[in-house]
Structure formats: C-alpha cells, structure tokens
C-alpha cells in the first residue's frame, strides 16, 4: 500500500512551501516533491503602471534581495530607454549589490543553516533554532550579526535605507557617494574580511564531519548558469552575458540577456506555484541546471580578488567541480570574502565620487530585459510597454525558480536515503528540509517561518486516507 509523507511547512527558509514524500508498497520512497504554496502576482499587479516606477515597485518583492530586484528592474527599464548606465553609477550599484550579497549570505549561513552544523541534524528541534544558536554558540552568532550589519549599513549609507531603498532608479542612481561615507566603509572592511576568513577556516574543518551529507545532499550532475563579465575575468554579479556550462565544465551556451528565452524555457507543474525552468536544447526535465553561489564558482576559474581567488583555488582542489548542493554553503562564504574585497577595490577608484550618476530618457523601445546575480542566483526581469511607456506584460525568472528542478531532485535523493516510511525521526525530516536550505530558497518576503511553526507530517494511503500524523512546534 503506497503512502505519502507531508512536511508542511518547510522551516528556516524564506517563504511558504511543503514537501510530500510518496512511499511505495514496501514503505520505500517512490517519489518526492517540493511544493511552493504561495502566490505573489507581481507580474500582473504592475500592468498599466509607468515603466520608471518598476525599480521601486519590484524592490518590494523581497526584504532581503530588494537591491537585486531593483537592479534587474532598472536594467530592463534602461533597455526600454535605450541607454546603458556606465562608470560611477554602475560601480556604485555594484557596491550596493555586493553589500546585499554580504548581508543575505550572512543571514543564510549563520542563522538559517548553521543551527544544523553546530547543533547537529539529530538534535532536539526545540534547541536547533536561532535562539538555540545564540545560547550555545554566541561568538558565531555575533559574527553573523556583525556581517549582516556591515552589509546592511553599506546599503543604508549609500542608498539611504537598509530595506527597500529608493536610490536605484531607471537611468542610474538618485545621489552620488559622500566622501565621508566612502571613508567610513573602507575603515570597516579589514575586520569584515577577518571575520569571514575566520568563519571559512572553521567551516572547512566542520565539513569533515559532514561527508555523508556532502555525498547525498543534492549531489548529481546538472548544468550551471551564471552571468559573466564581458571584459574582465572576474565574478560578475551586476550585468553581463549569460553562460551555461555542463556538469564537466564544457560550454553549452553563451548568450545576451535579451536572448534568454532562446535558451531557457519554463514548465508549469500542477503541484507548485513555482515554475520549473530548463535548458531548452536538453528538454524537460533533462535540461536541469543550478544557479547561485555554487554555479557562480563552478562556471569560472577566477574571481578577481586576491584572497577570494586563493580560496577558490582551494575550493576547486577540494571539491573539483562541486556537484553536491552542500557546497552552496562553502561557496557562500567565499563569495562573502570576494564581496568585501571587491567593495574595497571599487571604493579605491577616485571616479567613485563623481557626481554624474543619473541619465534621463523616455521609453524608446517597447521591450527590455534586465539580468543580475542576486545572492541566490541569476535574476531576470523582462518587461513590455505600450507607446506611453506603461507596462503591458512582465516575466520574472527569479533565482529560486531556476533551481526548482534541482531542489526537487535533491529532496528525492535525501528522502530515499533517510526515510524508510516506518520509523520517522526528527533527524530524517530535518535532513529533508536541510537539503532545501542549501539552496537558500527565497519564496517571498511576505512571511518567514522557522521552527516555531508546526511541522505537519501525514502518512496517507492510496485513496488519500490519513494513516498517521505527527505534529511538532
């Protein structure tokens, strides 16, 4: 008799989702799905609004990756205006984007995932939480607070607000950089770098105790997608061309952002509000690919800053072309180091204080695509406008969406190893959730639940009858 296990909601991620695990007649895992159960509807609600409002409206999609949405949106608008933001405004945007990556990765690593590493996958659910972490490992928790504060304060100092700043505008930025702000940020970077390096050293030692999770947490071949800098060999998070490689590193495609629909298609599955993009030439679902920190490191051999490049070398030596999603955590720390180094380099440029940061234009074409690398991966905003510049159509492919197929396959892999259908334990269920956390999915910023919400596990028979149920929280 087949049964279904339901984990609802999935905890310590951004947004609402659940996991169902279908068991076969022998109690072994037959199939598993990661369901996104919330609907936002931004693509519809902006219809009829003028294009230049988009960065401010789209930034409201998320309280964590506001900056990423504003940047992708602004770039789509600038394509409609037929302008390209260069020089100082582009570099200021890069700094704010790097600061956003720093605060987002700090949140993901220290607060959402580290309770699993520090307190153990099998530990008491009541203690395996952020509050448990504060009590048991206050120094690590303080490092998390510190790095998130540094990222947030850079955004606030340059863009005016920590969350939902309205500084990024179609055409550039609302204001230039204050020289005193520049000096204040530069003064904080060495300590931020030290804390990240210290965390990296600790995490590399910690990974030795998680060999089974590394082997089984979303460890399978996929393609990888990320932005590439058009001129320099460095980690590009702001704008550029898109590159898709296969699991061995061979180039599959190199394309302009406006051509994304030639290479990526989106499948809609009836069991989730999250679409399932795939690489078109390989078809569905074989065209599975991953985005985000792991993809960004796998797709290149150089990051472009000295200490991060040293870490990348070690990463490549340790994991070759890492196929385990567990390495997302490791990649996040290396990217944080890169972010701090790169912010310093950009601030050292004397032109960063130039006052020319905003260009103005009306709508000159009827369609535009903007692509940036959000902390969680490639983010695409695609708009069409009427002759008055009002939005008539929008398509967003957000980072978590790209990873949907991979997250589902990762859940299946972990469930098959840890769930036997007859003896459910917290450790088993937490591992199923923990593999989702490696991707750091951001399903929305409307509500964000962790341990205190109930975990509802249901065993259901082939006719849907409830056979057993476990609640926690």
């Amino acid at each position: 008799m087949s049964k279904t296990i339901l984990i609802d909601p999935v905890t310590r991620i951004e947004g609402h989702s659940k996991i169902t695990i279908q068991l076969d007649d022998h109690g072994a895992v037959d199939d598993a799905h990661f369901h996104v159960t919330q609907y936002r509807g931004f693509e519809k609600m902006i219809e009829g609004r003028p294009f230049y409002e988009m960065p401010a409206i789209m930034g409201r999609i998320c309280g964590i990756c506001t900056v990423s949405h504003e940047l992708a949106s602004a770039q789509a608008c600038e394509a409609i205006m037929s302008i390209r933001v260069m020089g100082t405004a582009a570099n200021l945007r890069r700094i704010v984007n790097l600061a956003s990556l720093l605060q987002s990765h700090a949140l993901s690593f220290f607060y959402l995932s580290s309770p699993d590493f520090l307190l153990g996958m099998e530990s008491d659910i009541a203690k395996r939480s952020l509050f448990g972490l504060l009590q048991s490992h206050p120094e690590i928790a303080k490092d998390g607070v510190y790095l998130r504060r540094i990222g947030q304060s850079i955004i606030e100092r340059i863009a005016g607000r920590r969350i939902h700043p309205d500084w990024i505008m179609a055409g550039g930025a609302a204001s230039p950089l204050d020289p005193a702000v520049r000096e204040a940020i530069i003064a904080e970077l060495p300590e931020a770098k030290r804390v990240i390096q210290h965390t990296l050293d600790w995490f590399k030692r910690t990974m030795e105790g998680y060999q089974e999770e590394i082997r089984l947490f979303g460890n399978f071949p996929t393609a990888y997608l990320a932005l590439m800098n058009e001129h320099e060999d460095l980690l590009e998070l702001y704008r550029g061309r898109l590159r898709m490689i296969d699991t061995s590193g061979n180039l599959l495609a190199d394309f302009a952002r406006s051509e994304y629909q030639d290479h990526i298609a989106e499948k809609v599955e009836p069991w989730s509000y999250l679409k399932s993009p795939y690489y078109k030439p390989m078809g569905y679902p074989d065209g599975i690919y991953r985005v985000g920190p792991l993809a960004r490191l796998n797709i290149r051999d150089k990051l472009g800053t000295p200490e991060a490049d040293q870490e990348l070398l070690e990463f490549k030596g340790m994991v070759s072309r890492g196929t385990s999603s567990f390495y997302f955590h490791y990649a996040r720390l290396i990217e944080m180091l890169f972010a701090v180094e790169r912010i310093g380099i950009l601030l050292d440029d004397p032109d960063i204080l130039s006052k020319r940061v905003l260009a103005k234009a009306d709508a000159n074409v009827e369609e535009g695509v903007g692509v940036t690398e959000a902390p969680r991966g490639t983010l695409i905003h695609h708009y069409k406008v009427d002759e008055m510049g009002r939005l008539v159509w929008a398509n967003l492919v957000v980072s978590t969406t790209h990873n949907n197929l991979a997250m589902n396959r990762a859940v299946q892999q972990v469930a098959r190893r840890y769930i036997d259908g007859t003896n459910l334990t917290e450790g088993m269920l937490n591992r199923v959730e923990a593999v989702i956390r490696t991707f750091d999915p951001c399903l929305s910023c409307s509500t964000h639940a962790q341990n205190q919400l109930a975990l509802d596990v249901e065993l259901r028979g082939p006719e849907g009858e409830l056979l057993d149920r476990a609640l926690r929280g």
Partner: protein
Amino acid sequence: MVARLLLPDLTPVAEVLIAHQLTIDLAETITHVDRVILVDAVADLPPGEVQVYVITPEDGALDMSHYVTPGALLLAAEVLYGRSPAAVMVGIGASHFYGEGLTAPVEAAVDEAARLIREMLSD
C-alpha cells in the same frame, strides 16, 4: 513619518533610524544606547489612537528570518552582548495598509506621537 518629523530636532540627542522592519543585525546597534523608542503602526488599536507599550526581552519572533519582534531583539542583545536597553514602543492604531500615504486619522496622530517622544526624551 514620525521619525522624519523628529529627525531635524532630535539629531543631537538621539539617533533616528528609519527601518522597514526590525532585523537581527540591530541587536548589536541597540547595545550602544540606554534607551530605545520604537515607533510602529498597530493593527489592533483604533485608527489614530496612540499608545505606549513597555517592551521587555522575550523569545518571540526570533525564529523569523526577515524580521524579529521588539522583545526578541532585546533578548538577542541581552544573550549576545550581555545588556539590552530600556525600550518602549509608541504604537499608532492603523486604519488599513493599502494605498500610498497615511489615512486621515493616522496622519492626525503623527504629531501626537512625535510630541510624546519629545516629552520622553526631555525627561
């Protein structure tokens, strides 16, 4: 809105932070002051009514990732840094949360909230 109103005359005696929501990184920031006054809309007060709440450290929404409750922020400061400041929240009853700007009863209460805060700071 209240914070913007207070910004010009409070800058020498108080630091005004405009925050869309409370986040864990503010735990360290608040340990550097003796007192924190939070200003926020309150859904379950009549529109435009102003009320002052005393905040104490408590394990509330410390399990939320995007935001923490005022009590949870104080608790995080106390656990991590060994101290948390005295804290109150000046709440203004909200009418609804749709549309741009403030509704008439809430806009009328902004001056009252600012007056209360000035009074607290002059103590």
